[in-house]
Structures are given as C-alpha cells and as structure tokens.
C-alpha cells in the first residue's frame, strides 16, 4: 500500500494526543460591534475536547488583499461538542484578523488545536471571580460555561471604554454569573475602583479564586490583592507565536518561580499561568 493510501486509511496515525489539525466550515462570521467580530465554525468532534483558556492556531486565508504567512493563535471564545461548534471572538488588528474577516459562510478554515494548558478550577474553589477588559473577555468566557457545568458561583467584572463596546454581558448572565460593568466613560474602570469592587466581593466571602488575562495593570492589581488576602489566581498570557506546539521557542516569557527567573513557552507551559509567578511587562 502506498503512503498516501495508508494516510487516507488512517493507518499513518497523525495524533497520539488531543491536538489535531482539522478543516472546519464557517457557519457565520459577523460583526459584534465596530471593532470585534464573532466567527462560528462547524468543527469535527476530534478537536472539541477543549478546556477553558486553551487556544487554537488558525491558518488564516490568503486573499488578494491580505497575505498572512504564519498561523495566528487565538483563544477559544466558545466550544460545544454537542453542537459541533467552535467560536472565536476577535478584534481586527492586523493582516491575520483582517483576512479572517473575509471568510464567508461555507468557507473552509484549517485549525490546529486545542493547544496549551487551560485554567484550573480546584474542587475547593466554589466562588470564582473573573476580571476582563476588551478582547480579554473572549479568553475568559469559556470559564463561565465551565463554572456553570461544575455548579460554581461566578462574579464577572467586565471593563471597557464605554457601555456600547461592552461585550458578552448577556452571555455571562445566561451562564448564571453576577456581572459588574466598569467603564472609562463613567469613570468606574480605574484601578482603584476595580480594587474596591473586588475587595467588597472578598469581604462578602465570595472569592476563592481570581482569573484574568492579557493586561499588565490587571495582573499587578490581582497580584497585590491575591497576596494581601491570600487568594489564588490565574492569568492567560499572550505572546507572538510561530509553531504553537512548543518547537520553535519563539513565544517565551519570563516567570518568577520560587525566586528563580525562568523562561517558559506561552504555547506549551501556558497560556494560563499562576498569577503570582507571572511577571509584569
């Protein structure tokens, strides 16, 4: 039998792990507001055993206007094995996301994943708090689904420039979360206000663990609050990537592990890390 025949017969097994390269079909790709779009994909079951905080590496299409070369890492916004569905919430920022925006219903998108280490929810963490701003919501949204599945209480603090660019509020509420919105327009999103809101929740006894992503300011805030009140936390970090699998060593960041500064790969050891070991940048 030729190699091609063996490949097609599935005899050359490509995967021993949970990570697969797979073609998906675009179900919808629509604007959420002026800057963000929601991409919904029809995805095979093989790639839908996802954990909150994991990501996919997307082979963005090459179009006449946009020629992205490397894959683009993107956190999972939603996944459902039941519906055979994978969702990404993305902000139009560069070559890759602009190319993604051109995908039409029925188009094929090749994805690699799920990748990386997601968020942990320890059994004793009954009350969860997440702090999100902007596109960080996309990364934290699957936590709400998982919290609901596990029967945990969730407080979602969502920050944005103004009320009209706040996203996913309905989604978090539908997952049973208490949602607190903070905006620049109303002057409620500065670090002191955020600290007051979080510390009020802590005093009410409804914070066993805290989660955030992306932002340097929110990382520092949660590190301080976590250290003061002895509350664990996790952060999902971003870094530019090439392979997404851990081979190229491109996506490293520095971490403070018991006083020792180490370089860890965001794609492999992360993207989720302990809040106290993450280092501000």
């Amino acid at each position: 039998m030729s190699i091609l025949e063996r490949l097609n017969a599935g005899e050359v097994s490509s995967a021993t792990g949970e990570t697969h390269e797979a073609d998906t079909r675009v179900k919808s790709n629509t604007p959420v507001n002026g800057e963000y779009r929601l991409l919904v994909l029809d995805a095979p079951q093989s790639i839908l055993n996802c954990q909150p905080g994991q990501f996919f590496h997307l082979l963005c299409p090459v179009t006449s206007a946009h020629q992205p070369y490397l894959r683009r890492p993107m956190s999972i916004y939603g996944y459902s094995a039941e519906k055979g569905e994978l969702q990404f919430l993305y902000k139009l920022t560069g070559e890759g996301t602009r190319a993604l925006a051109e995908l039409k219903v029925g188009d094929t998108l090749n994805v690699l994943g799920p990748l990386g280490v997601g968020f942990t929810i320890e059994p004793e963490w009954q009350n969860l708090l997440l702090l999100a701003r902007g596109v960080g919501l996309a990364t934290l949204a699957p936590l709400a689904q998982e919290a609901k599945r596990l029967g945990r209480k969730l407080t979602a603090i969502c920050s944005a420039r103004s009320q009209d660019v706040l996203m996913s509020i309905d989604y978090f509420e539908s997952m049973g979360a208490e949602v607190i919105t903070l905006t620049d327009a109303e002057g409620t999103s500065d670090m002191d206000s955020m600290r007051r809101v979080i510390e009020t929740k802590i005093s009410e006894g409804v914070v066993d663990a805290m989660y955030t992503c992306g932002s340097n300011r929110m990382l520092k805030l949660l590190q301080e609050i976590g250290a003061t009140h002895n509350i664990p936390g996790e952060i999902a970090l971003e870094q530019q990537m090439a392979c997404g699998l851990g081979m190229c060593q491109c996506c490293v960041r520095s971490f403070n592990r018991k006083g020792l500064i180490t370089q860890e790969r965001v794609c492999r050891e992360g993207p989720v890390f302990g809040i106290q070991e993450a280092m501000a940048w």
Partner: protein
Amino acid sequence: MVNLTTKIGSLTLANPIMPASGTFSEDLFEVLDLNQLGAHVTKTITEEIRGGNPTPRVCEVRGSMLNSIGIPSKGIDYFIDNVIPFYNQYDVPLVVSISAQTADDFARICERVSVPGVDAIEANISCPNIKEDGKAFAMRPSTTHAVMTKLRGASDLPLWAKLSPNTGETIEVAMAAEEAGADALVVSNTLLSMAIDIHSRKPKLGNLMGGLSGPSLKPIALRMAYQCAKSVNIPVIGCGGISTVEDIVEYLIAGATAVQVGTATFINPNAMVTLLAELEAFLQNQNIQNVSELVGSVRDEDAADAVVFMETAP
C-alpha cells in the same frame, strides 16, 4: 512500489525527508507520526544552559519569516538524560545538532554527544543568531576548516556540516568542510535579514537581525545546494524554503541526496508526512523506481527552454 531508501554516507534512511533543526521537537509527536520520517534532527544544543535572545523572536515578512531565537538550550546533561531516550523509542536515525562559540568548545560537546543512540551529528556552524552580527564559522573556508577538523577528531559518528548562505564563498566553504572530514553537507541555514516597523521605527526582532526562512529563501538555498553538489564528493542535504513536493524534487534534481523541511512545519504540522506521500506519488506517476535516480539529474549542459510566445505558438 517505488524505493525511497536514501543513503547519506554510511547512514541509511527509509526516505529522504527529515526535519530541519530548530523546527522540530518532541512536541510534534502529538500531531505527527514520527515513525514516518527519514531521520529526526534535534534543535541545536549547546554544552551550557542558554536562555536565548530577547523577544520578539520571530516576525513575518511577505510569504516567509525571520527568526532570532538564539539557541535556548537546557544544556547537554538534560539532553542526554531526556531527549535522546525519547527519540530512541522510534526506529528512526537520530541526528543531533550541536553548536558552540569556539572550535574547542565545539569539539568538547561533539565528543560528549557521541553516545549510543545518536546516529549522526549535525554541526551548526552557521547559526546567524548565536554570535554578534550574525558571524558564524561557515562564513569563511579557513574557520570552517578549523572547526570541522577539531570536530572530526572528536567523534567517529557521521558528521554533517550545516552551511551558511551568509557567505560569498559557498564553494570554498563546502570544499573546506569536505577536506576537514565532513561526511555530508546540509545546505543551508537561514539568511541574515532585518525588518523594521515603520510606525514605531523599531526593528521587528528583539535581536535586531535574524534569519530568513520560508519559500523566499528557496532559490538561494537551491543554488547553493547545486553549487555544493557540483564541487564536493560527499552527499548534500538540501534545506531552505521547501513547502511543496515540487520543491523537494527540484532540490533532488539539483543534486541533493535528501532534504530537510523546516518552516513549512510551522504552517502545516503534518507537512513532512504529506510531502512524503506526495513524493512517492510523484515518482510512481513518473515511473521512477528509485528516488536516487533523480539526484543530480539536472540538465545543466542544455540551454533553458525558450518561452513560447502566443503569436508564435501553432
């Protein structure tokens, strides 16, 4: 049934497709069946533990990429204890890529990795990221000869020299490596390059400069592979910008005995196995029994085919 068996000196590979150093690691086993590859080529290791270069370590240019990873290394002890046993689970030859700052340090790590379970050593004498301004041994025949002579004295394993496109003396460097005892040449490493963000006016790589890889490197590396194959009697392994089966066939015709696939794996992690299947299909369609029949079959004595213009076409 076509014969894909490939001989690199004393080493026999099941097929001519292997990964390029730095674009392959144990991590790929999750996506790709590692048993299908002609050889496993590890990321370059150094004797000491190295952190690597500041980020950003890669950037994309039109249709290709630049990197300045800088050889982060967990050191030789970790490598011997953990990495070699991992690859020895597979019945595939293991090629270990090594590097060092001086010829003496190079010889020492070469001796230390010459252990059972290692089938060949690839001397990365061409990394543009390990020394200031991208200087490397393989830029000059004299430094190539000096370091390869020391390496030859340090190991009895097959020794491959990975050459650099950052030289005006490709043929002289290739001959120097052969004369010093190299068993094969890997042609080639990345081309020293640069990219600048026009808005911030900052270089796009943390280390200012880095190596170009991907399809835009291919014509340059192909030219070098051709020049090397013409001027030495040891096998040449083509490396640079391979992403299609046509690229592989082109390298073989140019004179390469085998090929390394690198950046293409970042885009499609299954690339090497897909290319292997396509190479086999190509040979079948062309009625070629042995892949070795293609090697060096370039008709360079003939003039290139003239373009047939529309108005003169029958």
